[in-house]
């Protein structure tokens, strides 16, 4: 489904963010990517989202080379991927409903679909009561659940979660991981990056370990080993 083919990213001659990375991710997989800060995790995700282009190599989504897409095609491609960030990135002057509705509007869905789907995903992340609240009225865990709801509302093929638990306490971390697992069980591919050993060890899913821009381990039921 996703295939990195000898991808390198070199910013200047000395700064190599990624070096000849190759791996594949199958549909419905739950893959965690671990590594120190600066190991290249975020660069890798940015390339998958077509935010940055590789210096060498190709990235395929299904059979299309992502970086050969036009701007309009990139917009359409991004609607197949849901993104969850460490810092939530909710739109501050929109309430919970509108934050999620916005992603659907961007995808060109009708008002009827939006009115039906938004409450439904909020139920999935257990946040129905806060539908009319603004982001500043929510706790960190709640914000992250809104951000997950926004990521899944367009029923994407893949969810990318970039250190989604980095700003959360253990209880909220546990909740968020459970939600991600539930989404995975429903058939969505999940790519998760994290520094949290507990999360990785409890997941018992595939783990890619990165160091200095390379993948040094790829374990089927991996643990957090650095």
């Amino acid at each position, binding site marked *: 489904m996703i295939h990195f083919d000898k991808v390198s990213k070199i910013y200047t001659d000395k700064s190599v963010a990624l070096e000849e990375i190759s791996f594949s991710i199958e549909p419905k997989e739950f893959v965690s990517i671990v590594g120190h800060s600066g190991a290249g995790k975020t660069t890798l995700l940015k390339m998958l989202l077509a935010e940055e282009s590789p210096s060498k190599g190709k990235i395929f989504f299904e059979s299309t080379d992502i970086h050969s897409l036009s*701007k309009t095609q990139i917009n359409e*491609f991004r609607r197949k991927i849901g*993104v969850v960030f460490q810092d939530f990135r909710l739109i*501050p002057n929109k309430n919970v409903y509108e934050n999620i509705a916005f992603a659907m*509007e*961007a995808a060109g869905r009708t008002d009827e679909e939006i009115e039906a789907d938004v409450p439904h995903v909020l139920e999935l992340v257990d946040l129905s009561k806060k539908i009319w609240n603004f982001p500043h009225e929510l706790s960190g865990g709640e914000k992250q659940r809104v951000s997950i709801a*926004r990521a899944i509302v367009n029923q994407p093929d893949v969810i990318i979660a970039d250190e989604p638990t980095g700003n959360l306490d253990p209880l909220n971390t546990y909740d968020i991981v459970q939600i991600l697992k539930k989404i995975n069980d429903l058939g969505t591919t999940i790519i998760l990056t994290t520094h949290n050993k507990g999360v990785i060890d409890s997941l018992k899913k595939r783990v890619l370990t990165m160091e200095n821009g390379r993948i040094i381990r790829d374990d089927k039921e991996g643990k957090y080993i650095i």
Partner: protein
Amino acid sequence: MWIKIKRVIRAGFFSFWRNGFISLSSILVMVVTLFVIGSTIFSGVILRSTLDQIKEKVDINVYFLTTIEEPEVLSMKENLEKLPEVAPPIVYVSREDALAEFQKKHENDEITLQALDELGANPFGATLNIRAKEPSQYESIAKFLESNNSLSSDGEVIIDKVNYYQNKDVIDRLTRVINSANKLGLILTILLIGISILITFNTIRLVIYMSRDEISVMRLVGASANYIRGPFFVAGAIYGFISAIVTLILFYPITIWLGGTTENFFVGLNIFHYYANNFGQIFLIIVGSGVFIGAVSSYLAVRKYLKV
């Protein structure tokens, strides 16, 4: 398509309303800009009307010798009326009329009247008052009077003096002063308008800078560039529109307050009457500039954050 436009406009209104304080500050800055633009219109009108009024006041008075008889003056008048530069009618003041006018003017001034009586004869010559169609044509009319045409049929001098050359200096100088004031004013206002547009642009850029995360999120959920830009564009236009209305309201008391002063000082132009009579045009200019500046600033400012 229609649903997208509806959503963009709605989002624009919401972002305007919910960013209350930021919207307010942008509006204040834009009011200053529009105020400068409005003041430019008014000062231009004042200067132009003053210049016109002064030009109106220019004329040529031809004073004839006291010995000249009426038919000769009238034939001269006829000759002058044939000139293409002369704007009819030429006003003829006979010797008797001139005397009567003088007496009327000094009816409370015994000594002057006595002195006039002692002269015995009427000391006033007949006069012709001539206006040209264009101020620039006075020169040629004056030349015509100077030339042989100013002599009677038997070659005698009939004109005592032509007062054009005395006024000419003063008028020329005033025209120059007003013209250069106009030019300086224009340069200054262009500069001021430029600066205030830049300030407005920067204010809006700051507003959008604060939304840069929002823009990047919109980009990552797959919104198209125009769909992201739309609400900012709409909000910018709203800033402009509201600022324009505020400016137009502000001009109301200000022009009333200045109206009397301008009427006395600038020969009869009441700025408030001008504002009231040309409201439609001024409304269009101010609102148009406001919406244009707001919308274009937003459009350009968002561009920078759309590269993701």
